[in-house]
């Protein structure tokens, strides 16, 4: 633009005035040439001026006499040189550009492959985790089932024990009843023996009275003299008899008292035996042990149920997590498809780049490539995800809000 302006300045300020001056001279000489009509003279002067300007221009350009004329080709040459350099540089880089596109594309493909391999491994491990968890749960359930069977056996044993204790209780009750009956008999015997004591006392009194009577009879016999001698013998005999009786009664009384004492002792002994015996204590102990065992087993049973429930709960959690994670791994497919679209775009950009550079190299023969906008429109048409459309809109259309997509899950 600057060169053009300088050139025009030279033309207007130098060449045109010089040409006009020469034309005036021409006109002056033409006025002496009579065969040229006057109307054509002006035209011929202008024509001559233009022609002169042209030749002077050609001459000066050729000779390089005017500075401005020299500078225009110099600058143009410089620009062309620069352009040529840029063109050579771009041509040299073109192949590298395509290699770089290829590099990006390959990297993305490798990344996709890598994520795919990792995700497959991940899913396999998830599957293994679930299988192990399930197997472990089954194993624990089986162990618990064996434990439950054992508890059932012990439980049955406890029932037997309980039954035996009940039978023992019956036996003890029968024994106690017998004891009680015996005790009652002893009690009655004791009572009867006590009833005998006053009779013995009466016999003893009678014996004493007989003795007194015998003494009185002896006295009376002595007073009667010889006639009472026989009576005195009888009286003595009666007195002896009375003494003997008294003695025997005393012995009987002592023996009865001794027997009463023994019966009392037996009574007390049996009475204690009824309420408290070793057998009873043992039975009570067995009963307590059985009860304790029952309580323990009940606790173990409860614990086992709790364990089973906890394991089931944990298994449910693992199961839900595995199911959710199996859904989450779909992100790899989503990313794969997005990256594949980027690869496709890179490939097309690479082709477009080649086409563009070929056209720059030979713009006269090659047809002009389409505008890059057309390529972008193609990209846009090929998007399959809402997010791809959103990003495109945000980058190229400056839109941050796009229309709402259809629902994620739809049953027709």
């Amino acid at each position, binding site marked *: 633009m600057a060169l053009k302006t300088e050139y025009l300045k030279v033309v207007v300020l130098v060449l045109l005035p010089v040409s006009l001056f020469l034309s005036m001279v021409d006109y002056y000489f033409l006025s002496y040439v009579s065969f040229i009509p006057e109307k054509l003279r002006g035209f011929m002067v202008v024509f001559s001026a233009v022609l002169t300007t042209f030749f002077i221009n050609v001459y000066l350009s050729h000779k390089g006499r005017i500075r401005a004329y020299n500078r225009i080709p110099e600058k143009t040459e410089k620009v062309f040189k620069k352009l040529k350099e840029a063109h050579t540089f771009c041509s040299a880089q073109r192949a590298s550009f395509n290699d770089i596109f290829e590099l990006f594309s390959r990297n993305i493909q490798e990344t996709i492959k890598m994520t795919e391999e990792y995700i497959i491994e991940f899913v396999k491990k998830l599957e293994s985790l679930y299988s192990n968890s399930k197997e472990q749960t089954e194993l624990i359930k089986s162990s618990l089932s064996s434990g439950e069977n054992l508890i059932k056996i012990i439980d049955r044993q406890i029932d037997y024990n309980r039954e035996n204790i009940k039978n023992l209780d019956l036996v003890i009750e029968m024994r106690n009843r017998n004891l009680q009956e015996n005790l009652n008999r002893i009690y009655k015997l004791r009572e009867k023996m006590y009833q005998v004591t006053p009779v013995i006392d009466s016999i003893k009194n009678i014996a004493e009275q007989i003795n007194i009577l015998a003494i009185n009879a002896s006295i009376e016999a002595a007073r009667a003299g010889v006639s009472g001698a026989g009576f005195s013998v009888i009286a003595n005999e009666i007195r002896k008899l009375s003494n003997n009786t008294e003695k025997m009664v005393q012995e009987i009384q002592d023996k009865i008292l001794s027997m009463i004492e023994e019966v009392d002792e037996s009574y007390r002994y049996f009475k204690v035996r009824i309420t408290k015996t070793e057998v009873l204590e043992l039975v009570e102990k067995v009963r307590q042990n059985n009860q304790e065992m029952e309580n323990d087993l009940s606790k173990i049973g409860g614990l086992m149920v709790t364990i089973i429930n906890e394991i089931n709960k944990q298994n449910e959690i693992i199961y*839900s997590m595995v199911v959710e994670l199996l859904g989450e791994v779909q992100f790899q497919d989503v990313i794969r498809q997005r990256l594949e679209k980027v690869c496709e775009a890179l490939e097309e950009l690479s082709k477009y780049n080649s086409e563009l550079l070929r056209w720059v190299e030979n713009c006269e023969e090659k047809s002009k490539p389409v505008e890059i906008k057309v390529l972008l429109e193609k990209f846009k048409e090929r998007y399959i995800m809402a997010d791809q459309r959103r990003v495109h809109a945000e980058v190229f259309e400056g839109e941050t809000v796009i229309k709402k997509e259809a629902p994620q899950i739809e049953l027709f």
Partner: protein
Amino acid sequence: MPKTVLIVDDSATMLLSLKTNLEMHGLKVEQASNGKEALDKIKSGLKPDLIITDLNMPVMDGLEFIKNVRPILRFTPILILTTESEQTKRQQAKALGATGWLVKPVSGQDLINVMKKVLPGV
């Protein structure tokens, strides 16, 4: 007798994750990596109780597969599980006889819930 589900997807991760999920729910799984492979299996006598297919696949895409499979399996529910969110494709799938449309990623539980609706007894 467990119910059979045919899953069609060109992604190895999708096939494996779906297979694992469905087998965990007591289902028998058959798989194919594109529409043609799935169609060949059906023509060979496979009678799945449910088909879950992707849409964008090489060789034969999901829509083409549904178009070909519908005359053979008239009443089998077909679910499309895809990243495609365009409404026109959805309408096309509906017109061809698809039963439902699910946009990836779908949570494992959501997938099972949908399956329970289209395949009673799962």
